[in-house]
């Protein structure tokens, strides 16, 4: 066991070192991508085709409208691809998705949730995976990054009439200049290590004992990489990153964790550079790292200790986990996937130990800000920083300011609504589901764990995570509809609020800092943001958590 503990510390350490090494150049690169006035020749042709002016600065409302229009188009296209699968090429003979599943899937991938109420290898052909799901893996991530950048511009700009950039240009650059190059490299690394990449159909082979088994084909590596890089999490196969063809060994496991955390942990740097004060970026990164380290530590401890009835009978909490990753590698992946909005899993979270599952759930409840999804992590954390500044700023006797912007009534209203939205979706969705017939029907296990399954589902959907306590039979019309609604609310209401906030901030004049201004880059503030996050989320969810994971853990 001590060897395992050291291995756990070692992999955590090497991960941090890798991320630390990469986040400076990547953060600077992203800042350049989103700030550069120049378009590449390809992009110019691209914009001509689309008939958009990429240099037209949009007000926040136009930006939002463009974003919603784009997301609506994505939902429609993906819904059509799912429904019409039977009539399209490369369908492996699968029929079209039923309406509820098609809606749930379209919403799920457009909102960067990638909750899956279908089984990849049993329902989705290669065309749907490539042209539908892979594309949304890219663009939903690019949308999240665009929103984060818009908010950063709001903080960085001074008196600009609420203009926060051009959505079409931000989306294009995010997808083509940032995600695509990393994805190509990452896909090849994964493919070299055994992740399959072919357009072959599944074919039957004879096993060693003479049985028949399907040899699977599919463009997995190209989708797998963007699944993690874009913190999407929708698996090519049902077992997601626990599947040997998605995640063949411990090295790919670490690569996937690295890719999950790559952009979220580099964006604070981008933020620091764009607002012209790198220390602000360090502070945000500090809060993210702190919270995530604690979550990782707790999750790893829970899984290594293996409390609970079944784990103690088995001798370790190996149910639902792969032998090649081990407990530590699984816990690290679990913390990465729930700390971001990824939702990919390399083990079945339903079978995590009670405290481990509770930590995974709570990490999502934090709003996925540690370090959060691509873009959504940064804007979520910035909103929390603004909230902290408001309370702490009053305590130093000034109208609160963040990055030189006053946080007044309008700003705090948007922040308050932001903080309110996702918990409301989680609590209402879960509460309705545990007292209504269709909701109760999906619960696999009675008692506290059943409550955890439902709570996890709505926490995951509303926070656009996508992982599940998969014992919950969520493939029913009821859960498809409810989680679909939770995903939409959890994605677009916060985005609208964030863009409105960006607009308000952009039209404000920047106030220069003085000794009387609350410094938002010191350790005290970093700790305070973490504390405010924990307290606000804790107070909201403690009652329900105490009936689910807490009771389970105390069994």
């Amino acid at each position: 066991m001590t060897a395992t503990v050291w291995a756990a510390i070692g992999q955590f350490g090497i991960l941090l070192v890798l991320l630390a090494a990469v986040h400076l150049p990547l953060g600077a690169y992203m800042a350049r991508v989103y700030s550069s006035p120049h378009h590449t020749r390809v992009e110019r042709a691209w914009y001509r085709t689309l008939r958009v002016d990429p240099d037209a600065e949009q007000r926040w409302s136009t930006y939002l409208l463009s974003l919603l229009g784009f997301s609506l188009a994505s939902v429609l296209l993906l819904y059509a691809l799912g429904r019409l699968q039977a009539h399209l090429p490369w369908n492996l003979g699968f029929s079209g998705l039923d309406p509820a599943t098609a809606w749930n899937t379209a919403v799920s991938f457009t909102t960067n949730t990638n909750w899956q109420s279908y089984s990849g290898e049993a329902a989705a052909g290669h065309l749907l995976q490539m042209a539908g799901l892979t594309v949304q893996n890219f663009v939903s991530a690019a949308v999240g990054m665009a929103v984060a950048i818009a908010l950063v511009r709001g903080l960085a700009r001074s008196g600009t009439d609420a203009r926060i950039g051009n959505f079409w240009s931000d989306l294009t650059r995010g997808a083509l200049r940032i995600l695509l190059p990393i994805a190509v490299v990452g896909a090849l690394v994964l493919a070299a290590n055994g992740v399959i990449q072919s357009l072959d159909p599944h074919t039957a082979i004879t096993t060693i004992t003479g049985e028949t088994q399907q040899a699977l084909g599919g463009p997995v590596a190209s989708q797998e990489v963007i699944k993690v890089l874009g913190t999407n999490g929708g698996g090519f196969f049902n077992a997601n990153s626990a599947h040997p063809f998605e995640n063949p060994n411990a090295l790919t496991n670490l690569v996937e964790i690295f890719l999950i955390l790559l952009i979220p942990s580099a964006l604070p740097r981008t933020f620091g550079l764009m607002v012209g004060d790198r220390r602000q970026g360090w502070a945000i990164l500090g809060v993210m790292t702190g919270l995530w380290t604690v979550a990782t530590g707790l999750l790893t401890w829970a899984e290594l200790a293996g409390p609970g009835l079944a784990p103690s009978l088995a001798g370790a909490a190996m149910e639902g986990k792969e032998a090649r990753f081990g407990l530590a590698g699984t816990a690290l992946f679990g913390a990465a996937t729930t700390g971001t909005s990824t939702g990919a899993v390399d083990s079945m979270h339903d079978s995590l130990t009670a405290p481990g599952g509770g930590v995974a759930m709570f990490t999502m409840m934090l709003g996925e800000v540690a370090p959060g999804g691509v873009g959504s992590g940064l804007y979520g954390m910035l909103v929390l920083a603004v909230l902290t500044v408001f309370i702490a700023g009053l305590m130093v006797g000034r109208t609160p300011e963040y990055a030189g912007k006053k946080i007044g009534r309008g700003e705090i209203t948007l922040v308050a609504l932001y903080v309110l939205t996702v918990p409301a979706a989680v609590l209402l969705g879960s509460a309705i589901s545990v007292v209504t017939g269709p909701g109760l029907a999906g619960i696999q296990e009675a008692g506290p764990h059943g409550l955890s399954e439902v709570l996890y589902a709505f926490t995951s959907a509303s926070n656009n995570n996508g992982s599940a306590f998969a014992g919950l039979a969520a493939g029913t019309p009821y859960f498809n509809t409810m989680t679909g609604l939770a995903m939409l609310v959890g994605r677009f209401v916060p985005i609208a609020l964030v863009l409105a906030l960006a607009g308000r901030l952009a039209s404000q004049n920047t106030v220069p800092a003085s000794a009387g201004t609350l410094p938002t880059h010191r350790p005290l503030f970093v700790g305070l943001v973490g504390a405010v996050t924990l307290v606000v989320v804790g107070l909201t969810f403690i009652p329900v958590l105490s009936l689910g994971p807490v009771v389970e853990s105390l069994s």
Partner: protein
Amino acid sequence: MKPTRTLWTALRLTLVLTVVLGIGYPLVVTAIGRVAFPAQAAGSLVRDDAGQVRGSALIGQSFLGSDGTPLPQYFQPRPSAAGYDAAASSGSNLGPEDAGLAAAVAQRRADVATFNAVREDQVPPDAVTASGSGLDPHISPQYAAIQVARVAAARGMTEDAVRALVAAHTQGRTLGFLGEPRVNVVTLNLALDG
């Protein structure tokens, strides 16, 4: 910009992105993969001496008789919620306090101990728990170790010969700290047959 115009722009953009990211990008990666890592890209298939494909080194298989009982001449993999059906990857998704899971674990422990003629406390955790994918090709070296005598007896091989094969199919931690030491049951059993 009017809402309808925005929507048309959005649709055009979605289509262009679909062509670039949904068709162009996977095809390019596939092409490179086919040239650079053909074996891995095709699924790390393993063949018998006759050159016949018998599975994938990455995908576990069940080694059961026609009556569903484990075959003693093969190393047994971990329990699987998917029955090693490669087209239906899945875990049990049972929670830590689930009574059914607890009963199953106890039952498996007893079965594994009996089957391999070892004490119950010698049965390692991976032998009594189902993996996440249901396709885990690996077992722990401990689980392999308690199976050596049975396999050797069933095959009329010396335990040392079996142990040597096990060692040949055992991987340590990658780079010394990633993952856990493990034995690939698929390649090991194929090697036993070969």
